[in-house]
């Protein structure tokens, strides 16, 4: 039976750890990575909490052994760290001519962290000019490809907070269509003053720890992260007897077509995305053991997503949680890190808790998973929704 597309490697850097093992450890021990902003100056410092990776750009550059005059931005460096872990985990040689290897990355901020630092300084400081071209979103992917030594198909997706889910989805379709044999898929986003202030103007940032699916939720914590999966064709898996971590069995993307930023009241886009994913996976709602929800903890998202879950699953919504209380909302990377968490749930038969939850929402009876739970997990559904009504669902299944 066709199980979907094989996942043979994964890598992650987030506010709760710089490796898959570290992330699992934090998830198990309810250790969140939410703090004040330490890496850059911002007047919002006392008013917001974020999921920040406590490494400076210099430290990241050292970890990657980059030359001193490199032009990588924080987004690119976080991505390179996570992607090289994934490649090592899958034990693949991306330079090999035997297989067609690609990279589908995603980002929402691109090189904004550098641009906002030097925007006005560039004209008088020629030594910074090497960064000018690094602003464009696609350049972060090129830098990651160069760092890995990958020459071939490279592209970048940017659909706001569902970006990495869409990158994973495209990767699977590139393999299915026979255009690639294996593909590195995921997303990366660094924190920046630009995004922090942007979300602040929407008045959806919490001044304390975010509380997904709680009646008294005040908004989200932003975060930064990167995560990548290695997808490989069945043929490679068979030929090389590869160890499969899990399968990507379903995926779907739909548009809410309701409002540029807000989700519709009945979660139409989310509902459609989940339906499509079930169709591709040839699974039904009762097959799902755990849902890694989008759960940003904004009043609008959690209500809309909750309603969509009820529309799809009826009275029997499976155990669900949002892991954003651990990591913050990492925008384009979010679906990437949550894919890693979904696979960890399958590998370890674990459900991760929805931290900070206290009071059920008054609109419905949904209660998120509150404690770590050992339980057989065969299929996990992961949701990611973004600006522009972009709704994506991925379904992961046990290897």
């Amino acid at each position, binding site marked *: 039976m066709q199980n979907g597309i094989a996942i043979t490697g994964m890598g992650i850097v987030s506010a709760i750890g710089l490796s898959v093992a570290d992330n699992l450890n934090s998830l198990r021990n309810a250790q969140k990575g939410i703090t004040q902003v330490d890496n850059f100056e911002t007047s919002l410092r006392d008013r917001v909490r974020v999921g920040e990776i406590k490494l400076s750009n210099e430290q990241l550059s050292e970890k990657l052994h980059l030359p001193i005059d490199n032009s990588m931005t924080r987004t690119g460096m976080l991505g390179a760290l996570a992607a090289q872990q994934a490649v090592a985990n899958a034990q693949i040689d991306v330079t090999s001519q035997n297989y067609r290897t690609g990279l589908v990355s995603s980002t929402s901020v691109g090189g904004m962290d550098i641009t906002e630092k030097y925007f006005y300084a560039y004209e008088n400081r020629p030594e910074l000019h090497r960064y000018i071209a690094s602003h464009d979103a696609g350049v972060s992917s090129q830098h990651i490809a160069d760092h890995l030594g990958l020459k071939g198909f490279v592209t970048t997706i940017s659909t706001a907070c569902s970006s990495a889910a869409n990158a994973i989805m495209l990767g699977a379709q590139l393999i299915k269509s026979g255009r690639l044999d294996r593909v590195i898929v995921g997303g990366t986003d660094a924190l920046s003053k630009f995004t922090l202030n942007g979300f602040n*103007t*929407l*008045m959806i940032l919490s001044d304390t720890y975010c509380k997904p699916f709680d009646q008294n939720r005040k908004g989200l914590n932003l975060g930064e992260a990167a995560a990548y999966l290695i997808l490989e064709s069945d043929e490679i898996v068979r030929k090389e007897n590869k160890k499969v971590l899990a399968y990507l069995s379903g995926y779907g993307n739909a548009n809410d077509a309701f*409002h*540029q*930023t*807000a989700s519709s009241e009945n979660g139409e886009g989310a509902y459609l995305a989940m339906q499509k994913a079930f169709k591709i996976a040839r699974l039904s709602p009762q097959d799902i053991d755990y849902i890694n929800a989008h759960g940003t903890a904004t009043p609008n998202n959690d209500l809309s997503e909750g309603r969509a879950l009820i529309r799809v699953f009826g009275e029997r919504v499976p155990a669900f949680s949002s892991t954003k209380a651990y990591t913050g909302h990492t925008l384009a990377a979010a679906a990437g890190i949550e894919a890693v968490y979904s696979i960890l749930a399958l590998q370890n038969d674990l459900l991760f808790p929805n931290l900070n939850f206290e009071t059920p929402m008054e609109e419905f009876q949904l209660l998120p998973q509150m404690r770590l739970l050992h339980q057989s997990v065969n299929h996990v559904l992961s949701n990611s929704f973004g600006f522009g009504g972009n709704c994506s669902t991925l379904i992961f299944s046990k290897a």
Partner: protein
Amino acid sequence: MEELKEELKGKIIEVLNLEDVAVADIDDSDALFGDGLGLDSIDALELIVLLDKEYGIKLSDPKQGKSIFESVNTMAEYIAKNRTK
């Protein structure tokens, strides 16, 4: 008060980029949202910044805007009562 209302209409047109609307087109009691001027949630956020920037009034919860931004009348009354500049 009348002066404040006229000023307010001009500023609303300006910050919300209402190109086809003139000050004279807005009645003091017209609904700003919904059927009236047809503003939406993004406009509400823009108006919150307008209160802060022009009149030194800070709203921390966007829900507060609902009653304040009902019409130019309600907005002007709230500003007159709470302005710090």
